[in-house]
């Protein structure tokens, strides 16, 4: 066991540090460091333009998507090197949030199912940020029941014709391409009638409507399909095999490794280091210390768990569903932390204006954002199902839709 760098790792880290020191957009350091939760602050600069600029710069120097093969725009780096890169990129890494879905989920799917020609065409531009991708999976009627999707794809000559609606599509409004899962056969059980495609987001009949979220942000969209045509060559995997293909995508969702998941611990630590409460300095208050210690232990536990997953990865093992714990722990913790922190401040804790109260505004943003963390990308309940069934091997719940053709499943309507 060794939590320090090996000699080779140290050399690599120095190389990364040197490049970042010489190239990172230092003028963004301040706003990026004080970004609210679920948003990337870039001060007076346009976030998308800055994200693309940084990504292109990295790509040109061989620092984009470093674990990808070099022919697709990466540098064939090891998982450990990738961790070192992430550690050193630090706050600038949050600029890449724009590309996470495309690079983290669409790309692995393309690598597994697209033709060689398609890979050569699309992956390098995805790595360099010149083209942005999104993922069109969720639907209004689906919720946690992802496979309950209703968007239809019907074959028409060499094309497929798409009709239906997706929701919670992150970045659809600035995406160039998307991967799309559809129902091609409603007469078979729900997992069996699905087919995956990728499409040009500017295709005729695609309509994108932003969703305003409860906290006032809007990064998500509804996407409507009205007789949108997709050529059959853009099918990923076989007809009816869409669920299997989607698992490749979703498995990779969990590979966002490296301890980068936000928990709110640094924010509350910073607050209580400064804040005074009735008993004196907040950090000396025993109720504060007790809570803080529990959160630190959880936060450290997530980081150390991520480290272990990296070890497994570097030995060629596939990180398993046990990595679902990250979001489950972080989401609840963020909510608890924000609630507790604001509570220490009385009414001024409810201020959301960062000009007046930068600390509490950031924590209020966290409080308003945290309910989404417990829902998006798998609710707390779904994650507990995954852990209990796939890690602990407990039997699955009774299923009302088991074996039923999709169009016979009860919908309540």
């Amino acid at each position, binding site marked *: 066991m060794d939590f320090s760098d090996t000699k080779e790792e140290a050399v690599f880290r120095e190389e990364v540090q040197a490049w970042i020191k010489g190239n990172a957009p230092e003028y963004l350091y301040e706003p990026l460091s004080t970004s609210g939760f679920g948003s990337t602050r870039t001060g007076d600069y346009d976030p998308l333009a800055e994200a693309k600029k940084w990504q292109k710069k990295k790509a040109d120097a061989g620092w984009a998507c470093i674990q990808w093969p070099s022919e697709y725009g990466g540098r064939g780096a090891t998982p450990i090197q990738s961790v070192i890169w992430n550690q050193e990129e630090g706050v600038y890494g949050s600029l890449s949030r724009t590309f996470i879905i495309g690079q983290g989920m669409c790309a692995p799917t393309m690598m597994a199912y697209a033709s060689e020609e398609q890979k050569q065409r699309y992956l390098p531009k995805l790595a360099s940020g010149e083209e942005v991708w999104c993922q069109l999976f*969720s639907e*209004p009627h*689906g*919720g*946690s*029941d992802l496979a*309950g999707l209703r968007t239809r794809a019907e074959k028409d000559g060499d094309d497929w014709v798409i009709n239906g609606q997706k*929701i*919670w599509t992150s970045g659809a409004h600035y995406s160039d391409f998307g991967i799309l899962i559809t129902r091609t056969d409603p007469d078979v059980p729900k997992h069996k009638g699905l087919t995956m495609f990728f499409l040009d987001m500017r295709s005729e009949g695609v309509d994108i409507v932003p*969703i*305003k*979220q*409860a*906290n*006032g942000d809007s990064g998500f969209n509804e996407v409507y399909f009205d007789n949108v045509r997709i050529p059959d060559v853009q099918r990923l995997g076989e007809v009816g095999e869409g669920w299997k293909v989607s698992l490749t995508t979703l498995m990779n969702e969990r590979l966002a490794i490296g301890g980068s998941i936000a928990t709110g611990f640094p924010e509350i630590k910073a607050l209580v280091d400064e*804040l*005074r*409460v*009735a008993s004196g300095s907040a950090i000396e208050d025993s*109720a504060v210390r007790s809570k803080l210690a529990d959160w630190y232990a959880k936060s450290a536990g997530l980081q150390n768990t991520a480290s272990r997953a990296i070890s497994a990865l570097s030995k060629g093992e596939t990180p398993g569903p046990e990595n679902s714990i990250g979001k489950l722990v972080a989401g609840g913790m963020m*909510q608890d932390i924000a*609630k507790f922190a*604001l*509570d*220490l*401040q*009385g*009414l*001024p*804790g*409810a*201020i*959301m*204006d960062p000009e*007046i*109260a930068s*600390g*509490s505004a950031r924590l*209020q943003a966290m*409080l*308003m954002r945290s*309910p*989404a963390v*417990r*829902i*998006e990308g798998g*609710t*707390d*309940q779904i994650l*507990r199902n995954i852990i209990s069934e796939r890690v602990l091997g407990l039997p699955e*719940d009774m*299923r*009302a*839709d088991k074996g*039923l053709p999709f169009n016979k*499943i*009860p*919908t*309540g*309507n």
Partner: protein
Amino acid sequence: MNFDFSDDEKMVQDQIHRYLNDNCDFSRFRSVLEGNEPYSEQVWQGLAEMGVQGTAISSEYGGVEAGYLTLCLAAKEMGAHLAPVPFSTSVYLFAEALARYGSQAQKEKWLPLIASGQVKGTIAVSETLEEARADNIATSFKDDQVSGSKLVVPQGMVADVAIVLARKSDALTLAIVELEGVSRTPVEMVDPTMATSTLVFDNSAAEELGECSDGWDALADVHNRAAVLIAFEQIGGAEKALEMAVDYAKERFAFGRPIGSFQALKHMMADMYVALKLAESNCYYAAWALQNDSVDFALAAATARVSATQAFQLCSRDNIQVHGGMGFTWEFDCHLYYRRSNYLTLMLGGLATWEDKLIGALPAADAA
């Protein structure tokens, strides 16, 4: 012994309920939330016509004198409907401060105006980013003038008059200040319908509350009374949030069955119910203690406050979770309760403060 509200009290509640149902749906809240108006003038007037602002005000001062038990039930309806009006600051804080610590003349001047809704009041306390304490209040009272600035005043954008906590030589006092001409800046808060503002007093004309000998103690007393009423707003909100969750869970299907048939969600809602029920019962007791000036009033108030705060936070939060992604849209109403619950949690001082007050009010020999 009789641990329930009377039929008369429930009838008044029912009238308010029906009025708000018909006249104060969420579009009112949203109109204020989105900045179209600072509060709902129409609902405020409607309530005034029914005399709701004067529920617990003595008939001597133009009130209905229906007692605090009735006012508690009115508060519950205000909380349930998220009425975007300055009711809590006018009625629970300003009017109570007056009724408890005002001189006869002050009561005669102000209480009828509050009872009729002609005047909207508030109380101005916090000055720094920390919870208000006796040692972080700098606003001064001298020669019938106050000077200084209050950072966050609930309904400060809307109120006509405020009770101001200020320093008078060594001690703290409470003074009445009319807000015309006082500089106000809106402050962005988690619940914008609370029309919160900064108030800057610059030798503003002020009149000390006639019967107030120690401003900090008087404030604590007023806060205890307001805590009970706000606790009723909180359980009103919690009950509605739970109801929203239950209704949605019955209708929404996933995996071929209503999501409310999954134990994970059922048990979450059962826990919401438990928190609500405990809080509700503590509120009942506190209402009685308020009405009867019971010797254990401070304990009863803190107990109701702590459990109602917890219940509303839990119910408004997990209502979102039951709704899933839709619960986190601006369009769905879940966040309205979440916003309000977070504001009310902090409004009279945070949970830790009230927990501390509760223990301070417990007799040393055991009182469970």
